[in-house]
């Protein structure tokens, strides 16, 4: 009699399954959270299933994405980069979205959802500060209270973003636990949500966390891929050979990839943070070098030791400095639909500089990983490549100055 045993894959229970919001991706995903959050996750699942079919929600989101965020973002033929590579490369310019990264797509969509659910207080977390700034921006726009959890080490490294969030009216809550970076900030945000679940909505920053978050964030980020696919067809009359995006938690990548999943001729490549190299053990490559496990509420691929303790990730890029990854990526890896590669800090830094010199675009360190992979992965065919430039690099200048100065 068993009760507690209902097969993980088989019995996708809960409201979400019946409403069509994915809770599992193959064996991955689910809700490995304290019981106190289950009701809130059910409520969020139902609210999202309803909102995304509701014309008034969709219209308002579309209007804000157009007039406030500046969508659609351009698909730009990077000519000098193309010359350097010997094939055409298009960049999906999420760096040109308001606040400077794709994070705002998710933040605006979820803040609208919070307001719709009657929650006036928003909790969020941030590593480099891009998602925190996006959440603070969306909350200012909609008049919602906003608390952003941030590790004190990240607050030190990303002081300008702390100032931006405060200017936007958000409270930046310092997190002292552990390495005082993103992993602990997510944990602190979840703990706050446990305590204030009745009044607060948690805007998670990537396609991670318990169901329905991975599906919710993917749905809000797929605007990247939907636009890019249409723009690519308009420019070239055929689909790209390869679509490339960087993967930390994986929200820009999943948003880019999803519209191409059924285009079987299109190769999809996710690029992870190789840090000092996979063999060094100092990296953020949860898919390339992780184990099946649970972090922040979902079963996915995580970096942990043989006893199950979560390890600290290492990456020059704060946005990829995370020991987990969205569960849908783990599934796409297992079924072979997406190939995941890792590039090192040094390769990403070189690509950062190269794109600035070749194209007059200073990329964030996160998509610099995708550029770095492209630079070392030539391909001989008649086709072309599409790469999501998920954010701009202004935030990284101090960090890069230090690192390149060390050379």
């Amino acid at each position, binding site marked *: 009699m068993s009760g507690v*045993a209902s097969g993980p894959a088989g019995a996708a229970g809960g409201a979400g399954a019946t409403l069509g919001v994915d809770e599992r991706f193959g064996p991955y995903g*689910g809700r*490995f959270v*304290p*019981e106190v959050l289950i*009701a809130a996750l059910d409520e969020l699942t139902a609210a999202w299933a309803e909102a995304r079919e509701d014309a008034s929600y969709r219209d308002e989101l579309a209007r804000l994405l157009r007039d406030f965020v500046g969508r659609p973002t351009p698909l730009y033929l990077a000519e000098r980069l193309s010359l350097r590579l010997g094939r055409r490369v298009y960049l999906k310019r999420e760096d040109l979205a308001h606040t400077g990264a794709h994070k705002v797509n998710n933040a605006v969509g979820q803040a609208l959802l919070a307001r719709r659910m009657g929650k006036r207080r928003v909790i969020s977390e941030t590593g480099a500060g891009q998602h925190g700034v996006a959440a603070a921006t969306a909350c200012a726009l909609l008049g919602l209270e906003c608390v952003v959890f941030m590790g004190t080490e990240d607050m030190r490294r990303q002081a300008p973003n702390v100032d931006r969030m405060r200017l936007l009216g958000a409270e930046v809550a310092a997190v002292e636990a552990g390495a005082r970076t993103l992993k602990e900030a997510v944990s602190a945000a979840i703990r706050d949500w446990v305590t204030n679940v009745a009044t607060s909505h948690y805007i998670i920053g990537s396609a991670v966390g318990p169901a329905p978050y991975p599906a919710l964030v993917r749905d809000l980020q797929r605007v990247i891929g939907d636009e890019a696919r249409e723009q690519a067809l308009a420019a070239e009359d055929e689909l790209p050979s390869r679509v490339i995006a960087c993967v930390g938690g994986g929200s820009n990548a999943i948003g880019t990839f999803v519209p191409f999943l059924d285009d079987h001729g299109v190769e999809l490549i996710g690029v992870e943070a190789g840090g000092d190299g996979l063999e060094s053990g100092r990296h953020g490559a949860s898919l390339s070098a992780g184990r099946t496990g649970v*972090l922040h509420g979902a*079963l996915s691929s995580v970096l942990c030791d043989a*006893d199950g*303790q979560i390890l600290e990730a290492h990456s020059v890029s704060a946005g990829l400095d995370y020991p987990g990854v969205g569960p849908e990526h783990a599934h796409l890896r297992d079924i072979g639909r997406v190939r995941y590669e890792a590039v090192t800090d040094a390769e990403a830094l070189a690509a950062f500089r190269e794109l600035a010199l070749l194209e007059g675009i200073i990329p964030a360190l996160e998509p610099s990983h995708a550029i770095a992979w492209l630079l070392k992965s030539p391909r001989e065919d008649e086709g072309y490549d599409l790469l999501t430039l998920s954010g701009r690099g202004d935030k990284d200048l101090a960090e890069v100055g230090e690192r390149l100065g060390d050379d």
Partner: protein
Amino acid sequence: MTDRIAAAFEAARGEGRAALMPYLMGGFPDHDTSLVVAQAYADAGADLVELGVPFSDPLADGPVIHAAATRALERGATLESTLELCERIAARVPVVPMAYANMILTHGPERFARLLADAGAVGAIVPDLGPDEGGEIAEELRAAGLALVPLVAPTTRPARRARIGAEAEGFVYLVSDTRTTGERERMPAALRELIGSVQAVARVPVAVGFGIGTPEQAAEVGTIADGVIIGTRLVRAVAESKTSAEAAASVSSFIRECRDRLTAGGGDGAGADGPRGRGV
């Protein structure tokens, strides 16, 4: 081994009081001290012991227990070193390890269940594993004769509460709202109702853990609940002690006082009959 859980609750009920279940962070502040504390729990009359397995990312725990886990891990604590503590006291008092899902999945549910059974544990509490995700972990624990103790929260909806109660093994761990603890003088009506609503659907005893910080609060909760779990208060007592002897003395006196108060019943007379009879 789940019989030992039932027997422990039954024995306390026979004394007209709720069962007392102190929580211990394994390996905190170091292995030897935590063993002394574990033995002090048994000496002082704990009916069961909840043994925390230190984890790097304990989502369900507050800052005091999180900090204790971090310290234990820095001192080299592992699942196996924590289970040594279990083995040392298991003959004297039933021990229920509390472990997060990632550690179980990393070791493998079958191996995890075997390690617990070999150490003499009677069940397991997995705070981030609900009935929808239990699957293989529940099956392996059951096969090893261990109870997977389910959790219920104030936010758990009635239908789910009924399902959890009907399927529960060992006991139900009722997590009360942390904001209801502290300075109040009487048990809030909402908590009283909550405990009753879980008891109404549970086929096993209901123990309440909610940051109970004083013997008075323990006694008051104990007038209705079948068991009282005390965590943070005892971890803090250990943290504030300078020696293992001091830690043992501190937790012992607290546990003894709780037991005395539980036996005397709550302050408002509602619990004069002790916890109600349960089909344990």
